[in-house]
């Protein structure tokens, strides 16, 4: 029950409470706000901006031709695939390193400064170096994605592994559990929520990384698609790619939420 429900429980005064309630119902509100925002965008662009600037009607006009365009699909596929690959690599490496750091003090002390400072670094900054090492190709994009995602996973897994509640470890010890079984039965599940939080962060960073890499390296992908089309003043087309990116970002979020609800029902955030 949220704050405001408390207040809404106050006797509803005024006329036609039914209509009022309908107007105030969340879906109606959300859709209305969406329409208002789109109209505002359309209006502002029409009045103030040059003709080529993206606006809802323009985007709607080109939308279907763009999403059925092979080049666009290839670009979207390339970006998505790179992000997924990068995330998988980063998750595996990050979990390994994070768990090691979380459970083995020497590893933690040895790596702490590196992992923490690279976690705090905007990964765009190392793009020029990465292109030198990996070349101007998809490998470099993958490398940037992995770099961007790895540290948030490692840091979070490490936090998770370190903050396994002592009481659980105590229970395990009391039942004479062996170290491996403790790791699998307790440390891993108990740091899962942290891992998920890390993945949420990592997914966002990975998307940024892939777009930036494509800007910089000029290889096919949504970032490049945006760059090319906006440079040729086809903003509406380019914006479809932005929408695709938003969808990807939001779906990552949704998938993680779903996974949390479905498989980690106990890890609710209160």
């Amino acid at each position, binding site marked *: *029950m949220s704050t405001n429900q*408390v207040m809404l429980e106050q006797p509803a005064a005024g006329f036609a409470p039914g209509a009022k309630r309908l107007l*105030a119902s969340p879906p109606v509100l959300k859709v209305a706000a969406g329409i208002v925002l789109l109209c505002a965008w359309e209006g502002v662009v029409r009045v103030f901006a040059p003709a080529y600037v993206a606006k809802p009607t323009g985007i709607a006009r080109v939308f279907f031709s763009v999403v059925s365009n092979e080049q666009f699909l290839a670009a979207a596929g390339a970006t998505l695939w790179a992000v997924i690959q990068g995330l998988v690599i980063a998750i595996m490496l990050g979990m390994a390193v994070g768990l090691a750091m979380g459970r083995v003090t020497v590893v933690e002390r*040895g790596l702490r400064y590196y992992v923490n400072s690279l976690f705090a670094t*905007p990964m765009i*900054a190392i793009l020029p170096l990465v292109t030198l090492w990996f070349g101007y190709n998809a490998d470099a994009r993958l490398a940037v994605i992995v770099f961007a995602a790895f540290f948030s996973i490692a840091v979070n897994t490490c936090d998770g592994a370190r903050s396994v509640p002592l009481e659980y470890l105590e229970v395990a010890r009391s039942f004479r559990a062996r170290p491996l079984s403790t790791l699998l039965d307790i440390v891993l599940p108990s740091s899962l929520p942290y891992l998920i939080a890390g993945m949420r962060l990592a997914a966002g960073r990975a998307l940024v990384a892939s777009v930036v890499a494509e800007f910089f390296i000029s290889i096919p992908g949504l970032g490049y698609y945006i760059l090319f089309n906006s440079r040729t003043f086809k903003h509406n087309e380019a914006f479809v790619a932005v929408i695709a*990116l938003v969808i990807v970002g939001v779906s990552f979020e949704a998938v993680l939420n779903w996974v949390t609800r479905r498989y980690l029902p106990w890890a609710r955030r209160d």
Partner: protein
Amino acid sequence: MGSETRWARHLTVIVSLLAGAAVWEIAAYFTTRAFWAPLSETVGSLAESARSGVLMRQAMSSFQLYLTGLGLAILAGAPFGLLLARVRVLRVALENYIMMLYATPMVALIPFILSMMGFGFAPKVLVVFLFAVFPILYNTIEGARSIRPELVEVAHAFRSSEWQLWRDVMIPYTLPFAMTGIRQAIARGLVGMVAAEFFLSPSGLGQMIMMGSQNFDTAGLLAAILLIVVLGVCLMDLGRYLERRFAPWRGYE
């Protein structure tokens, strides 16, 4: 025993830092200078640019951009977030869109900003702003959603007026969440700053990196990156400090 373990703790850290420095230095002798420059040269380059004043100028330019963007994001994000926190209708209407924008990789908008607003200071500030503002909004709303209804009820039980409710409950409760948002904004804003300096008109530390890479001046490139790493770490710590500072009562968590 206590001092011994502390010594051991420092030892591992020192060994690891020294090892890192050594690897950095030695790696340079196994590749060409274009790929990697030794630590000594990097530090030399850093000292050189500090001496010539380039470093100061570029860092100031970056900082100006960063602080302006971040400051605007805070000024706009926090009050608007609080407003959304209290006005349920607004919040319900907008929260999904804000979450969407929170999940959007804002770099993708840079080409549009470039061709619409050009290349001056303003569009760069806009980029930093866009990177920074949504974490603040998002977290403030999260805070508002998680506000403990008991506390609002207490306020009502004591016959609190609307503005007293704001003063005594809403703002104190949401502030730490806004601070979490600001911590995230501090980190994201830095990314925004570098992105703006890369992809809009080069300036500041971003320009140093670009120039270094273009001229195969790897020492200069590494120097600039090192600087950004240090900056990132400091800002991250600052963010954490702020987060703690504004919620001494959060000790129970």
